[in-house]
């Protein structure tokens, strides 16, 4: 089996609640995974799907505080939003791109089961969101795949 087989990401599109849901387990305690989501020195290392360091990673971690992530490859496409709920190490809720991001961390024996939900306001918005993700994702897909395989090869 390939080494990434243990780390599959589950994806569910819930059309009834306009929600995109990812589920993934990490071999790390919830406290650490929560920190990785909320501290700029950590988040800038992994947020860019293409694998680079974020050029800008600003986090004002309080309800109503804003965040701004900019990748070096796409300085014209910043990802910005506002934090709504911060409950370390269980829950992080933010608003971005007119939808709500809800990240939940469940501890289980030193491991963490993370659920990322993108809750859209309407079915139309869900479609737009997916289309946008696809537009951004398609160009990166091949590069990501190569980088991913290379990294897995090093890790194995």
């Amino acid at each position: 089996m390939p080494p990434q087989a243990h780390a599959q990401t589950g994806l569910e599109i819930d059309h009834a609640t306009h929600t995109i849901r990812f589920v993934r387990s990490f071999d790390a305690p919830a406290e650490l995974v929560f920190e990785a989501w909320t501290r700029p020195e950590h988040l800038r290392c992994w947020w860019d799907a293409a694998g680079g360091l974020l050029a800008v990673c600003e986090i004002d971690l309080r309800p109503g505080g804003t965040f701004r992530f900019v990748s070096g490859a796409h300085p014209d496409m910043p990802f910005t939003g506002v934090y709504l709920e911060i409950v370390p190490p269980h829950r992080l809720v933010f608003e971005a791109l007119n939808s709500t991001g809800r990240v939940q961390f469940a501890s289980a024996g030193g491991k963490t089961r993370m659920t990322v939900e993108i809750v859209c306001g309407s079915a139309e918005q869900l479609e737009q969101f997916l289309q946008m993700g696809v537009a951004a994702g398609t160009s990166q897909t091949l590069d990501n795949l190569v980088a991913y395989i290379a990294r897995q090869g090093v890790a194995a």
Partner: protein
Amino acid sequence: MQSLDGIFHALSNPTRRAILARLALGEANVAELMAPFALSQPTISKHLKVLESAGLIEGGRDAQRRPRRLVAATMKDAADWIEPFRRQWEQRFANLDTHLAKLQQAKPQEEN
């Protein structure tokens, strides 16, 4: 290849999703679909027309009963379309996984 806009428009309606869920269990005709959904025949027919033009369903073999059934290939098109989006997040989470492993190596857990 069906238009993805058409597919996602068809999927955006709860009644049409329920009809698809019913058809996933097996063929059914308009009369058989009317009962569980408590909808009029014209309403069901309208929804079936949208699903049909999106290529998500088609007429079954029995010409008299006029059953409808799912088109598996179109459902797969919709799933394939989501794949790059999924892969983008999968990549992001793989990065996170690598980063967490690095952090734990640098700072071994004291408990346990």
